[in-house]
């Protein structure tokens, strides 16, 4: 493995007594697409801010592109692109000026940054909105502009904090396509998300974070293999009957999970388990056999109760 571009070991961030990030360790290889997956408040954004060299760590070690962010913040930030969770585009500037001014913050000469801005507008499919006000853009357009802005300095690492939260499906797919192209070009991507499909689409490797700690690490496929089964059967008998039926289907599949509204049966052969259920004379109102997804892994690791 080539030398890692990000190395974190026992990275910790405490606010008074509360540990937002509690001793996490990971490495990111150049060109890799790395995901931090976790519920709200898991410590993803705090980790991203430390990696982005805008937040100092309480303890542990962190190296970005071979440098310590506590000592070389500006040098590190010069080589990063940051897409924050909430858009912080410059409302007082037009779309193209947002890119130019941002490039100037990196000290890029005026002529070069003007050329770069036009390339980025093209890439973000915003060329025809160059002179628009930021306020007049749709949510998806704002997000693409934020990503274009993060690319103005041709960064070695692109940090994306929940890049598609709040976007409609079309906007998400356009964004994924753009991010995938960057990945193909060799840009290292580090992203946080709580969308499982996003993690499966974009991440080569990910860590599941909960309460500031890493719960699991691996490729999406490996995590599914390790923490779930190949398929999942979802059956519904009506919320009153589910618990009663659960006793009757004991022994079917590798693992059964009873939820208020449905029963999940984890198995490598979903169809076979479903016919076994029907053979026992139980007729579910609805049934579904599906591939296991990261969501199953995620919920198994971080639990189903609402975390707030």
């Amino acid at each position, binding site marked *: 493995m080539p030398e890692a571009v990000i190395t974190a070991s026992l990275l910790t961030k405490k606010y008074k007594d509360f540990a937002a990030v509690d001793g996490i360790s990971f490495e990111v290889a150049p060109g890799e697409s790395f995901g931090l997956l976790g519920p709200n408040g898991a410590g993803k954004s705090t980790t991203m801010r430390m990696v982005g060299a805008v937040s100092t760590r309480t303890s542990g070690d962190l190296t970005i592109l071979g440098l310590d962010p506590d000592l070389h913040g500006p040098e590190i*930030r010069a080589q990063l692109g940051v897409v924050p969770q909430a858009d*912080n585009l410059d409302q*007082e500037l037009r779309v193209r000026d947002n890119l130019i001014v941002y490039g100037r*913050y*990196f000290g890029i000469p005026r002529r070069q940054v003007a050329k770069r801005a036009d*390339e980025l507008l093209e*890439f973000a499919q915003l060329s025809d909105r160059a002179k628009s006000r930021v306020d007049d853009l749709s949510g998806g357009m704002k997000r693409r502009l934020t990503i274009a802005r993060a*690319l103005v300095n041709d960064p070695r690492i692109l940090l994306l904090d929940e890049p598609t939260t709040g976007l409609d499906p079309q906007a998400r797919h356009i964004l994924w396509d753009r991010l995938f*192209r960057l990945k193909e*070009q060799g840009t290292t991507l580090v992203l946080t998300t709580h969308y499982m499909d996003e993690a499966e689409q974009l991440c080569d490797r990910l860590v599941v974070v909960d309460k500031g700690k890493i719960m699991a690490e691996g490729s999406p496929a490996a995590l599914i293999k390790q923490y779930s089964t190949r398929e999942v059967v979802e059956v519904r008998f009506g919320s009153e009957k589910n618990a009663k039926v659960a006793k009757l289907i004991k022994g079917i599949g590798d693992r059964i999970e009873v939820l208020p509204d449905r029963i999940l049966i984890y198995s490598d052969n979903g169809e076979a388990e479903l016919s076994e259920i029907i053979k026992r004379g139980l007729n579910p109102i609805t049934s579904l056999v599906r591939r296991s997804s990261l969501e199953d892994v995620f919920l198994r690791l971080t639990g189903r109760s609402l975390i707030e």
Partner: protein
Amino acid sequence: MTTTLPTSPALVPAQTRSRFLGSIYAGNSRAVLGRGLLATRTSNYWIVLSGFFEPVLYLLSLGIGLGSLIGTVTTATGQHVPYAAYIAPALLAVSAMNGAIYDSTWNVFFKMNYGKLYEGMLATSIGPFDVALGEIAFALLRGLLYAIGFMIVMQFFGLNLAWTALLALPAVVLIAFGFASLGMAITSYMKTFQQMDWINFVMLPMFIFSATFYPITVYPPAMQYIIEALPLWHGVELIRGLTTGDLSWGLLWHVLYFAAMITVGLIFTTKRLRALFLA
């Protein structure tokens, strides 16, 4: 539609920075100033102009109107000065202050808390000192602009009594720099609108009582000390000395006062930006 984004090697120049200020200063405050200038294109010019007219109206009503009843004022060195020429330099200092305060307080407050502007800036290779210096330089520009306009009005009414009035322009830059610097520093600690109102609460009495309209000697000594501690009094005295030609070495104290004010403001603004966005 392009599918790939051209990569341009060495787009970002190699960082040349001093070891001492390395983490807080990238020597690129002009990018912040440039952003401010570009952003003025969307600002409301009527609001900008209103700040200029306030001292002009005072000059007309008090200087010309009330001045016709008062006649001349005797300065500390025994010089007799027409009342309008006595208060005009004070109002010049006020217009520098107003312009500088406008951008460095309310505008900074919005950019900091609602526009998230500084958060975005500090995610780049720029440092908090660049942001402080660039924003303060931008704020003092408005003060300078108001002051130049006011100087023209003064010249029109024949209120510049000595050639040293020309030196009032650099003095105005100094005064505006001082107010912008301290204004931004104080604003960076403010969290709510109520706290911001305290700035107005301090500004108005300071405007009226800083020997603006009459000599400071009308106050009892204890009151004089308080006035002399406030920045506007130093601005008023400095400009008044220059436009009336009433020069003394004592004017240098006022220069020093503002130099200190600028330094304190820059240090605290930088510290605060660092604590807010890089901690």
